């Protein structure tokens, strides 16, 4: 390398060095001059979040969710991948108590088996609830379970079955996805936060007056309002008591209301407790009887 080239290289390095110093000075000044104060919690929340940017929380990414949390505009519990541990750390950063979150499960608001439902007529159409729902007088109760198992077909987890003509949820398998809620043409399945292993449910969806209900069902809610007087968590909506599951607490004393109910429409649903199982060990369970629907149309053939 000649001396001249050496000098040229040196000058080149010098120029770049000067440029770097000048640029650094200007940007450093601008950084301080145009500084935008950021809530320090945003940074900490950002670090506590998984950083997957999955968007499950409804925000564009973890950064946006962190900003919303720091601004107090949204709940701490929206991060599904993070789970309870992230909720805990977010609550720690925000200085609030972490509210426990509840898994969602479905409840079927009909408990009447086939023999309890009156004014049933033979139905020979396509054996789906959606089809049967279009036909008048398949059964007297227009809010009762049709027992043709649309929900059973819709369920990915094999968690809902038609037993004795009524859909029953298997809470050991249910994930609360809500597919059966969408599948039910009568809209008698609802998705609620499960705040305990076993929670109370209103086992009827019929909003008619007492006499009309009695004419179509032996156990339907007659709207006597007795339970609402004994349990304030139950409120009448039309002719039917409904439970506000947002206000539901495991400690509520529902026993008087359950005992008072003349139609036994208030039922406990959920996973059986150890005590229940123990109590049932001696009792002989009835055989599960699958409802048979004699129809000329085979389902598999019908759909090809």
């Amino acid at each position, binding site marked *: 390398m000649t001396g001249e080239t050496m000098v040229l290289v040196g*000058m080149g390095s010098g120029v770049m060095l000067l440029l770097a110093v000048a640029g650094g000075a200007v940007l450093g000044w601008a950084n301080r001059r145009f500084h935008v104060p950021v809530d320090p919690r945003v940074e900490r929340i950002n670090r506590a979040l998984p950083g997957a940017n999955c968007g499950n929380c409804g925000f564009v990414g973890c950064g946006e969710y962190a900003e919303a949390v720091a601004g107090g505009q949204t709940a701490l519990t929206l991060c599904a991948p993070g789970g309870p541990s992230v909720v805990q750390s977010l609550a720690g950063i925000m200085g609030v108590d972490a509210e426990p979150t509840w898994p969602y499960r479905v409840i079927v608001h009909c408990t009447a088996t086939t023999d309890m439902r009156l004014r049933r007529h033979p139905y020979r159409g396509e054996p789906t609830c959606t089809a049967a729902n279009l036909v008048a007088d398949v059964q007297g109760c227009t809010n009762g379970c049709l027992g043709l198992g649309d929900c059973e077909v819709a369920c990915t987890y094999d968690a809902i079955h038609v037993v004795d003509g009524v859909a029953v949820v298997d809470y050991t398998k249910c994930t609360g996805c809500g597919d059966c809620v969408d599948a039910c043409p009568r809209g008698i399945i609802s998705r609620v936060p499960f705040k305990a292993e076993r929670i109370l449910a209103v086992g009827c969806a019929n909003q008619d007056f007492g006499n009309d209900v009695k004419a179509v069902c032996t156990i339907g809610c007659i709207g006597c309002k007795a339970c609402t007087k004994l349990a304030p968590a139950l409120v009448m909506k039309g002719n039917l008591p409904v439970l506000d599951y947002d206000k539901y607490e495991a400690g509520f004393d529902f026993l008087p209301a359950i005992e008072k109910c003349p139609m036994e429409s208030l039922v406990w649903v959920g996973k059986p407790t150890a005590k229940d199982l123990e109590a049932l060990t001696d009792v002989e369970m009835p055989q599960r009887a699958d409802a048979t629907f004699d129809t000329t149309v085979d389902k598999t053939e019908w759909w090809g």
Partner: protein
Amino acid sequence: MELFADLLLIAVGAALINNFVLSYFVGICPFLGVSRKIDTALGMGLAVTFVITVAGFLSWTLTEFVLRPGAPLASAVWRMLGGEGGADLSVLSYIAYIFVIAASVQFVEMYVKKFFPPLYKSFGVFLPLITTNCAILFACLLIMKEVVGGNWGLAESLTLPIFGGLGFTLAIVLMAGIRVELDLADVPKPLRGAPIAMLTAAILALAFLGFTGMGASLKQALTPAAAEPPAAVAAVEVQR
């Protein structure tokens, strides 16, 4: 007067005739990326215009005094170190320009974040991407070519980036206006999304081709001394 005519020619040339996006096809990335809404597109166009102007000014300064062959500052140092004649640091031009562009983009980013937070959000990733916007490097290199050739001073070197940037703004805002309407149009299924955007850009580029040749006639109109039309053209005029 002659300088003014030159500047006008450069301005019209950069903005319309040789539009950066639609004629040279540089800066396509933000042109297609940030042209979904008119106000965002306008913001992007103005940000690019600002960055391109700052970068153009800085690159002219660097080229004129340091980088071009025989630049005064570099040559002085060169002679001090025992060299002969003038120094030629033009090998540094690319890295120096990129450095200058990156620094100006950083500056603009901070400024926008401070004073226009909604605009900052809508820019998203495209604001830092101005750094690698080839339209800006293209302008810098164009300036370098002319400055090294000894044709351009500061005025010309500022006119080009300003009007080039405005031309970019015009193109991107036009594109955004069309794409806003396209959202309501019944586009055939295979063409939805990117394909129709590409086609739109192509048709827009074709339309801008209509400005070709305007430069020569504008030059004739602006410089009366050289305006003597060639004989053949004059003859045609007379016949009419």
